[in-house]
């Protein structure tokens, strides 16, 4: 319990700093206020107009008031409208968020569900032909960022064979499951490939280590079959690093989501952020970045809790340290 509280306190601290940096820091950078005013008024505004905008946005108030009012707006969902198209930012984010969440979840799911069996089998049959093929290909995949995988997959499945439509069009899973999965197959695979490579390498190394333990020999001597031996006895103690890297990868995943959405023209958070940047819609960018950062922070928090479940020793060790 103390461990959970400690982690919670740390998480809240990080949340405060992150929201503070994204919301306010912009205004304190040299020329930051001018940028915001120029965005709102358009070029060639008179000083009076600029002054009015500063008043309206509260830019003349002290920083803690600004931060507090920003946080209040953020929590209550009063996010205002975009500068140029005058649409509600909240609606835009609400439309874009599920696309990115699906993409992230599918990506992680595909990567993990491919990596776990491959890694366990590779570790069990160490230095076999299967292991060497799997390890070499994983090493190669490690050097394949999303924007290299995406054109290859598009070429294979959308241009040459027309198997999957490109660009991907998002449809809700409840309206049309087939179209939904067709839209997400290639993007999730693109995201999953570099992730898979990392997971597979980490888990393989850990399972090799676990298999040398005495309790594995004992289990084997008791007559436990190969399948249960690997997946019941050996897997759980080996999960530590892969869970860590799955959590660390959520950050990389978001970078991947930005690029993959751009490549497949999916209208998710990544695309919203990038388009807003090009249209200089800083508030939209701020909210999008904060939302993504919050997802990342809380995912990490839950992973920290998951450690304790995987390895009870952590609870004791971390509560002390």
């Amino acid at each position, binding site marked *: 319990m103390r461990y959970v509280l400690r982690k919670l306190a740390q998480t809240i601290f*990080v949340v405060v700093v992150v929201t503070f940096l994204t919301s306010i820091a912009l205004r304190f950078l040299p020329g*930051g206020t001018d940028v915001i005013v120029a965005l709102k008024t358009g070029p060639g505004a008179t000083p009076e107009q600029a002054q009015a905008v500063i008043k309206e946005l509260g830019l003349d108030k002290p920083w803690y008031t600004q931060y507090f009012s920003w946080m209040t707006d953020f929590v209550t969902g009063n996010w205002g409208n975009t500068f140029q198209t005058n649409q509600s930012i909240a609606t835009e984010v609400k439309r874009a968020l599920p696309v990115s969440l699906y993409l992230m979840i599918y990506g992680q799911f595909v990567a993990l569900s491919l990596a776990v069996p491959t890694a366990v089998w590779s570790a069990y049959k160490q230095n076999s032909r299967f292991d060497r093929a799997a390890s070499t290909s994983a090493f190669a995949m490690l050097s394949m960022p999303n924007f290299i995988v*995406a054109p290859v997959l598009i070429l294979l499945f959308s*241009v040459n064979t027309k198997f999957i439509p490109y660009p991907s069009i998002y449809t809700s899973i409840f309206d049309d499951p087939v179209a939904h999965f067709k839209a997400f197959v290639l993007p999730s695979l693109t995201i999953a490939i570099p992730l898979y490579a990392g997971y597979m390498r980490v888990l393989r190394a850990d399972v090799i280590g676990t298999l040398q333990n005495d309790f594995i020999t004992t289990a084997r001597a008791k007559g436990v079959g190969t399948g249960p031996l690997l997946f019941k006895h050996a897997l759980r103690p080996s999960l530590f690093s892969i869970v860590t890297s799955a959590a660390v990868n959520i950050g990389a995943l978001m*970078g991947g989501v930005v690029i993959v959405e751009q490549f497949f023209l999916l209208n998710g958070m990544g695309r919203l*952020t990038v388009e807003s940047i090009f249209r200089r819609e800083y508030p939209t*960018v701020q909210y999008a970045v904060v939302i993504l*950062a919050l997802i990342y922070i809380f995912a990490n928090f839950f992973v920290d809790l998951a450690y304790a479940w995987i390895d009870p020793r952590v609870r004791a060790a971390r509560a002390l340290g």
Partner: protein
Amino acid sequence: MTDIDVVTDEHAPEVPVLADAPVKKVKVKRRGRITKWLAIGWLAFITISAIGANSLPYIPHSCEPGDSMCSTAVKGSLLLGQLPPKWAFFSEAPKPVNGAPERMGLMGTDKNGFDIFSRSMLGARNSLIIAGLAITFGLAIGTFLGMIAGYFRGKVDTVIENISNVMLAFPALLLAIFLVTFFNDPNTTGAANSRPLWPIILALVVLSIPPLTRLVRANTIAYAQRDFVVAARSLGAKGSRILFREILPNIVPTLLSFALTGLAILIVAEGGLAFLGLSVEAPVPTWGAMIAAGSEPLRNGAWWISLMPAFVMFLTVLSINLLGDVLAQRFNSREAIG
């Protein structure tokens, strides 16, 4: 019964494996050596081509403003547009123009008729310079912070660790995007026409500092408790002397392998930024921007525009990763001995 079968199955092949184990070992080792030299060779090739990219004997890779050769299409800018590479006998140009050859160059041409191979090499220059500078600065700062945190511990350590925790809490690419766009804004930089290089480098440096700090800190802690450091301290050496004369030389090999891995990661990150159009300005090629430019023609079957720079980038990143792996293994084993 089946269980016993499994066990015998397991133990049966062990004898032949032992018998030809030395042969296998040699084979694996040699293969590793060959790939290592291939990687070094590719990197040398890329570096030389990047340096000499301007004088490569190919069709122009970009148009200088006011270059009459380009604008009058004597070199056939649009005439040579979107031709597949020479060896791609299975590919046909989407729109064969009268008088134009069907295939062109080692990697084909893009829609302006620029040779993709020479553009890739020019892109290599930009990508390598940006990522190389970024990892140099990042490593310098990260090493400094990491060594201080790892040696002095206490309050300094806590402060540095909390700062890097916060920095790590931002998704990396988003942070880079945020920094680059803000500093690229014509309102803040003043000059609207030329986009400066330093925001990209700054963003990449910021990305690389926290993980490097952590790694260096862990290494420093490991060395700070070794006998020779304790001896130096008991002889009355100052903290700075111990850090730079005793600990730093020992972590340099590890730093080298971090530098290579980091370089690969930063090349990919720069590629991502360039893909989103946030790196160097458009006419100057970078790998990411070339891949992005090719994603549109890809739909019509013009695959080489995207895939060729992607392939060059993949080989480069793969080579760097391989060398980083080789270095890490070598120094790890040496550490185990010493």
